[in-house]
């Protein structure tokens, strides 16, 4: 299983772009990278998933370099409501033991 490493916490201000990087040095060829968001007292919510290069949706962008040993979740112009814990997951098709890790606690200030 590919282990992931993320910063424990980050602070930002409203309107700024936030980039959270996740390291996954032993990612396997058929592993995908998925990010989830969790608000207090709620279950995690899917944000974005990618395999390589760049993926963008209405919420975020995911940048994956060619070696795929890391990935960066980019949140454009954050607001107070983006304060949450963000988890990076790495996994492959066929069944795996999902490892969420401790995540990155993002705190957005006014």
């Amino acid at each position: 299983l590919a282990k992931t490493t993320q910063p424990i916490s980050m602070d930002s201000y409203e309107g700024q772009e936030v980039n959270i990087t996740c390291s996954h040095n032993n990612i396997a060829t058929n592993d995908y990278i998925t990010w989830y968001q969790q608000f207090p007292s709620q279950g995690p919510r899917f944000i974005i998933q990618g395999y390589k290069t760049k993926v963008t949706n209405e919420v975020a962008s995911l940048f994956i370099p060619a070696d795929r040993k890391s990935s960066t979740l980019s949140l454009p112009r954050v607001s107070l409501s983006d304060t949450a814990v963000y988890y990076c997951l790495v996994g492959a098709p066929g069944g795996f033991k999902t490892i969420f890790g401790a995540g990155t606690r993002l705190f957005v200030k006014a």
Partner: protein
Amino acid sequence: GAGVSQSPSNKVTEKGKDVELRCDPISGHTALYWYRQRLGQGLEFLIYFQGNSAPDKSGLPSDRFSAERTGESVSTLTIQRTQQEDSAVYLCASSLALSTDTQYFGPGTRLTVL
């Protein structure tokens, strides 16, 4: 459509009692997952089901924990002889298929063992 539901939302029990936590996944989702989250901590994977089968039970913390799934639908997580360290939020998720498919989480069951 209906999301993942869990019941009860809160459960307070006395040490030594057995508890059953229920998860109703999204209809048609073949994969189902259970996680435990202690206060202020990340998610701890417990077990997953592919259909009604749980291929790997090694994530269960002890033999007091068991889980089953029937009809490729409802799943029950049972904790026998509860201990105070079992206090946590127990989250269930389902996905259309294993692995890369998005996991949809329920609201969780907050278990407090006195």
